[in-house]
């Protein structure tokens, strides 16, 4: 057999064989055996020295072609095998992506805290300082300084837990305002403050009453603060909390520490004002009380009421939360049922 025929036979025989190989390792062995230094092609080429000089380049070119063909066949088979292997791996690694993810344990702040934090940020953005004060308060700051002297009928409106004749559990956060007003140096600028915190009333706990609840009161005192400023401030706050489409209205009311005093209603955020059970079919919901600071309150704190004036407002974070989220029992806030609390984890 001549060399060329030998090479042809070799090519024919191995092309088929390469297509049959099932593993990469086997393929590698074949590659080494076939194309390596000791392989049959090399051997054929070695035999070329016995050929005519005329024949040699033809056979040489033919041998190289055979070797290239085989190399290509091996490479192609290798790619097929590798592809198959990856497919197999992917198939083996396929999971049910609908299985649940690993839960992350995350706590949440109390819904009332959320309301208060939100309001604090809102008012801080308008330049208000946040002032805390004692929960055990003196009658002097809780009542006298707020223009509620002993035996004033308004004391009926606030049933009080007394500790002794002078000390009590504060019934509102207004005493914080009295304390701050008393210390404020108006030569350094106006007073703009909010006082959030816990308050106590001598009430029997039921769905709408709690002996402990929260208040957030605001006070702005300067030389030219107007009732219109109060209206604008409350409108901005109400829209921030209850939605940009809300409107407010003021109604005359009475608080000993403000004159004029108003109650503030907001358009019902359930029905938009057409009437529903939440707003008792009036389209309006009462949300807070406010007014212009009573001159007696200013004077009691040593502020010249002829020069300075201001507004004050007080709202209940408990009530805000009840209205905003449709909670109908104030006791829910203090029972702390985890199922109740955790629903406020997401953005509300």
């Amino acid at each position, binding site marked *: 057999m001549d060399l060329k025929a030998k090479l042809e036979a070799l090519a024919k025989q191995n092309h088929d064989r390469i297509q049959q190989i099932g593993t990469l390792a086997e393929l590698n062995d074949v590659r080494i055996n076939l194309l390596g230094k000791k392989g049959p092609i090399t051997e054929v080429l070695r035999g070329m020295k016995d050929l005519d000089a005329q024949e040699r380049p033809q056979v040489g070119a033919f041998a190289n072609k055979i070797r290239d063909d085989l190399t290509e066949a091996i490479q192609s088979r290798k790619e097929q095998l590798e592809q198959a292997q990856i497919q197999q791996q992917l198939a083996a690694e396929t999971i049910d992506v609908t*299985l*649940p993810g*690993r*839960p992350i344990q*995350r*706590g*949440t*702040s*109390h819904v*009332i*805290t959320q309301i208060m934090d939100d309001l*604090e940020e809102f008012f*801080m953005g308008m330049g208000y*300082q*946040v002032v*805390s004060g004692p*929960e*055990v308060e003196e009658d002097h700051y809780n009542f006298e300084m707020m223009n509620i002297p002993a*035996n*004033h*009928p308004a004391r009926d*409106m606030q049933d009080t*837990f*007394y*500790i*002794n004749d002078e*000390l009590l559990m504060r019934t509102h956060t207004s005493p914080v305002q009295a304390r701050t007003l008393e210390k404020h140096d108006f030569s350094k*600028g106006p007073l*703009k403050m909010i006082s959030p915190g*816990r308050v106590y009333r001598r*009430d029997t706990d039921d769905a709408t009453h709690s*002996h402990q609840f929260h208040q957030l009161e605001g006070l*702005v005192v*300067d030389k*030219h603060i*107007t*009732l*219109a*400023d109060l*209206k*604008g*401030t409350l*409108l*901005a706050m109400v829209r921030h909390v209850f939605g940009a489409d809300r409107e407010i*209205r*003021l*109604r*005359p009311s009475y608080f000993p520490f403000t*004159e*004029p*005093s108003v109650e503030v209603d907001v358009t019902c955020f359930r029905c938009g004002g057409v009437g529903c059970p939440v707003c008792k079919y009036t389209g309006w919901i009462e949300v807070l009380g406010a007014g*212009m600071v*009573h*001159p007696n309150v200013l004077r009691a704190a040593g502020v010249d009421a002829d020069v300075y*004036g201001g507004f004050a407002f007080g709202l209940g974070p408990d009530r805000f939360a009840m209205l905003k989220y449709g909670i109908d029992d104030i006791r829910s806030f*203090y029972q*702390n*049922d*985890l199922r109740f*609390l955790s629903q406020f984890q997401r953005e509300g």
Partner: protein
Amino acid sequence: MDVSYAWLQELVDVPVAPTELADKVSRTGIEVESIKRYADGLKKIVVGHVLSLEPHPDSDHLQIAQVDVGEDEPRQIICGAPNVGKDQYVIVALPGARIADNVKIKKGKIRGVESLGMICALQEIGYPENVVPKAYANGIYVFNEAIKPGSDALEVLGMNDTILDFEITPNRADALGMRGVAWEVGATYGNVPHFTDESIQESGQPITDLLTAEVADAKDAPSYQLRVVQNVQVKESPLWLQRRLWNAGIRPTNNIVDITNYIMLAYGQPMHAFDYDKLGTGKITVRRATDKESLTTLDGNDHELNDQDIVITNGKIPVALAGVMGGLSTEITESSQTVVLEAADFAPVNIRKTALKYNLRSQASSRFEKGIDVGSINQALDEAARLVAELGTGDIAQGVVAPTNIKAEDTIINITLDRINHVLGTELSAEVVEKIFNQLGFGTRQEDGLFTVSIPSRRWDIAIEADLVEEVARIYGYDDLPSTLPTTTLTLGALTPVQARLKRSRQLLEGAGLTQAITYGLTSPEKASRFMLHDSLVTQVSFPMTTDHQTLRMNLVSGLLDTIAYNVARKETDLALYEQGRVFVKTGDQVRPDEREYIAGAVTGNVQLKDWQQPAQAVDFFTVKGIVESLLADFSLVSPINFEADASDDNMHPGQTAAIFLGTDKIGMVGRLHPAFEKAQGLPATFIFELDLEPLMAADKTEIIAQPAPKFPSVTRDMALLVDKQVTNAQIEVVIAAHGGAFLKAVTLFDVYAGKGIADHQKSLAYTLTYRRDDQTLTEDEVNAAFDQVLAHLIEELNVTIR
């Protein structure tokens, strides 16, 4: 105050229907809480005339009445009321009628006899029990005048009237009388009320022949006015008067008492009537009660009085609690013939205290508390006397006995237009403001923007500029005010460091998986005193509502345990909760407790829930300690934090509780509840922590000075130590830290083991020590030298065996 729309219309022109009136008045002056009409839901109820009565053949109490209801034939109606009688005019519900509670009346047979309707009691057509005259409380209502049979009974009874409930705030007591309400409604619509005041005829004896009076201290009764009406017939009031009273929520009694109540409703002036003869002395003295003096009030209750109570006496003994309630001994009864009428003003504070003390708060006392129009006391008295004479066919004695009197004067307030606009943020003209003052019925003079305003005595709530500003604002209309924001110099809005720290601490715990609870600041004495970090005396409220809420808390853990119990009872068993709030502690002779900011947590059940990939993991001491460590690390404290085993709290597990120290100050604790305490409280295994944030917030803090990321690699060495069981991790770490050398960066405990293969009295602890140089790569020799140094000291100081 229940305001009758019909009565109001007699006093002032009301241009709108009740609903609109309610809305308008609520927006400009006084909130109208509700509107009601007794007739709502009722129909086919007429006046009937009982023509005859005969007993029901099959009943010992039913009667068969033939009743004229204005139809061609009388109707036969079976009636069981004990007071039904022939010739009575009564309320009849015809077949097809609806009476109270939506009950429908049908024709039917009662024990075999046909009944074509029902004769009604007032309660049956919807009147509340407390306004039904006692005479008709247990039977049907009987009209005391002839009324055309078939008339609409609802109209005759005043039930078609609309009642507006005016919610009177303490400053608007002027509207606690119909005349005041008429002024308010008139001001709202720019209408002047039209009151008819009839003059009185004094046909009796001179009053001085009958009565003398004195007031011991004019401060107690600044105005005290008496009239006497003689030859009076006490009887039932005419229907118009009864109607006025029950529509205002007051039960008709007899003509004299009804008139005093009517005058109170009309003028806001509480009145009292005494039986002159029962007074027995022809004398009245107003004075303070002496200690232990006693009085039986009209309600039959006995009271032991003291010198805070103002009493009316007959010159000898008390016959009434001034302004609060009359005495039983001088009560007006059917036999009374001569009546003493009292209209007065009493010291509000005493009235308030007396009414509260004896639990006798009434419409009268609440009016005196809030003040009355001193300008209409005499007018009210005269009108009362006139009515008593008219309805009781009596003779008014000549003159008034008035030991004290007040001359009513207008209050004059000066206010500038600028001031009004300055406070309201408006640009109202002088004309607009003047018109408002005129509408309110205030006398007004204006010159160059300065108003001189005369306020009549009926608006005694108006005393200062701000009060006038309010009047302008509300009548002008709050809706028409502009909305602006304050224009002040800029101010900074930021949390204080303490507020920011509290907020950050909350957020940190929430990130660690704890949910915030808010529990009560007032609790029981036992709960308040548990889990205390510092010795403290108890602070109590004087008159608690319940024993559960009487003591100011001195720890936060008890509230959290209540919460755990509440949730566990609802089958929620995996709980991680915290609270941030104040505790109230005091020592020595401190009266006012210090308020300290605390933070506490309670964790029970699983901290990691079982799922398809991993088993559940129950909370243990180290879970909670890890939370505490993470929280404390955030404070960047200069002084070290130490955890020391602490078995001093009986409610805590003695082997699983640590006291937490900042330097040498105890600032908290962490651990498990005592199993016995858990059992007693019905709690599952619960781990708690509590920290006093005050020393933590006050402590020195380290500052962060940024370092570049290390340039050279670190090297680690592991060690396994066999030590005596008593030796603590803390002790070992102290030795490692002390002798670790300059390049030791971290020590990590990675194994703790005791048991098989180790002697009973020993345990094995394994640590990784991490070394690094910041200026060059560490050499083997440097690391080995430092490591050997640590081992040597551990062997020497703690007698460890290196494994």
